[in-house]
């Protein structure tokens, strides 16, 4: 069903939804941006329409809502293992099509890579319902259309902002509440962006050879990339983590094991006991990430990992553009094919 609601009617609906659900949406955090006098748009808990910032792209992806930056896996109390409980109140997440497609990638990594499912991911993932934020215009750095991630049908409700009013489509009957009846019934089908300003051409998976690994292209990134890992942190599809133990009390033998987000660009990602590491140059790390996003993942799952949200381009302090990197790589691969 579709509804046209005033912001007041929508707020009443959200209030009612909040009884059963936690709501998470992009929020404007005033003055919290990277530069002075800039705002940060990132995910947070909301209770009203006013709390949300649905017109802009969030700097950080919604993954932090259900895949915490730092998560306690369990506590050790004198050699007994205690699993911390989590809030099991279901979550309604407001997000764009690229992010819904990104979560499909996270699902692949956590639930389908190898024979074991990731217990901690799954227990939060099960709580999620998606509200699709209609996205027709996109933003300057987006290239979701090229990545085939601009559309999705995997949502429980959809929202369009029309001036002061809200169009709301309900797919999941659990979200069909009495408060909606106060609005006007109006069918609404969310539309999807058809063309981005930025376009990428992904080199054919089988055309990328090992020769590309040693190409000069990556050397440029050795000099430009500072290995800060921001691109990984904001990415909807980056899922790597490290285990981390913390001792709370040595005397009473109390500690905990956590997992924390890890970044393939940051020093130490491959360090083994004894000090050996792989890919010590930042350019090699850029190559590793690029290959994962547009080559390796595809070989395992049949679609690309990158969804073209462009957040890595937005956040990079060195103005490295991932979309440009993909296009440059494609040119190199095409050149290589011509030479043959």
């Amino acid at each position: 069903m579709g509804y046209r609601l005033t912001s007041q009617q929508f707020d009443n609906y959200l209030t009612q939804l909040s009884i059963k659900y936690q709501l998470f949406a992009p929020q404007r955090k005033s003055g919290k941006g990277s530069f002075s006098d800039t705002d940060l748009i990132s995910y947070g808990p909301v209770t009203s329409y006013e709390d949300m910032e649905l017109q802009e792209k969030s700097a950080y992806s919604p993954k932090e809502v259900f895949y915490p930056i730092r998560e306690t896996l369990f506590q050790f109390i004198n050699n007994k293992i205690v699993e911390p409980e989590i809030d099991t109140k279901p979550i309604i997440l407001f997000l764009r099509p690229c992010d819904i497609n990104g979560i499909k990638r996270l699902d692949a990594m956590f639930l389908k890579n190898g024979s074991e499912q990731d217990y901690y991911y799954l227990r939060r993932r099960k709580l999620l319902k998606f509200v699709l934020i209609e996205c027709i215009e996109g933003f300057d750095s987006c290239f979701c259309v090229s990545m085939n991630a601009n559309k999705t049908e995997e949502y429980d409700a959809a929202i369009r902002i029309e001036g002061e009013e809200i169009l709301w489509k309900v797919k999941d009957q659990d979200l069909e509440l009495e408060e909606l009846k106060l609005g006007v019934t109006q069918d609404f089908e969310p539309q999807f962006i058809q063309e981005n300003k930025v376009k990428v051409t992904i080199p054919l998976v089988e055309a990328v050879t090992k020769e590309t690994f040693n190409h000069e292209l990556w050397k440029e990134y050795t000099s430009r990339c500072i290995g800060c890992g921001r691109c990984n942190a904001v990415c909807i599809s980056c899922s790597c983590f490290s285990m981390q133990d913390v001792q709370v009390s040595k005397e009473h033998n109390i500690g905990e094991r956590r997992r924390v987000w890890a970044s393939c660009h940051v020093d130490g990602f491959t360090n083994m006991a004894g000090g050996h590491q792989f890919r010590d140059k930042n350019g090699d790390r850029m190559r590793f990430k690029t290959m994962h996003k547009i080559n390796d993942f595809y070989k395992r799952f049949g679609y690309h990992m990158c969804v073209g949200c462009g957040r890595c381009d937005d956040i990079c302090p060195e103005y490295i553009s991932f979309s440009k990197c993909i296009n440059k790589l494609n040119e190199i691969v095409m050149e290589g094919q011509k030479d043959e």
Partner: protein
Amino acid sequence: MNNPYLPKLYKILNIKAETAMDVTYKVEYEGHVIGGQFMEISIPGVGEAPISISDFDDTSMDLTIRKVGRLTDCIFDLKVGDSLFMRGPYGNGFDLNQFKGKDVVIIAGGTGLAPVKNPIRYFANNPSSIKQLEILLGFKTPKDILFPQEIEEWSKQCHVYLTVDQPVEGWEGKTGLITTHVNSLDLSDVDNKVAIVVGPPIMMKFMTLELLKRGFQEENIWVSFERKMSCGIGKCGHCKIDETYVCLEGPVFNYVKAKNLLD
């Protein structure tokens, strides 16, 4: 819901110093194990690390651990009767059926001997399962030689060539890098010889090149990779090389595959 991250406590049955740096812990363990697999070993509040299984029987497994960091320092404080947290085993391990009836060469550098100790023991105890066994081992110095008694035992059953990079006074064995001793091996009918090569990345790289130069077939060479497996179950991403997860598809790889795994 099954939680694969939860470790269980296992009792330490025996502790044996191999070198000043390496100690073998025999741990109570019942369950299916394949030589070449690894466990995630942990001490609460200190950390977790992948350790290769050096040997096993129906009721126990051996873990040969080198003192290299905070976690292993703490493991070294443990005594017989204490317990260790573990989860696993993970990885594919060596499929010994692949070597049935073959002429087998096992080449190991340093702690690389640990993951192949079980296959060596199996072949040495079951000589009829293969045609011939030769073992080429390299260590930094005589003090670094792992499993000296076992090597002695193996020498009675097959050819063992042992070299050290840096000899000390009184050392009467072979010296020099392991790669310079390939000639010691029986290289007749090299087309049908099967090799297992395990050691530091640089050693594996040059040893496999050396074997290929001598006429070994790519598909007859097996290697075992060491990477920073943080989860062991294909989620954490640390051991990924290209589209391959060392913890899932490895750590044992045929050279045909391994040669294309570029970090």
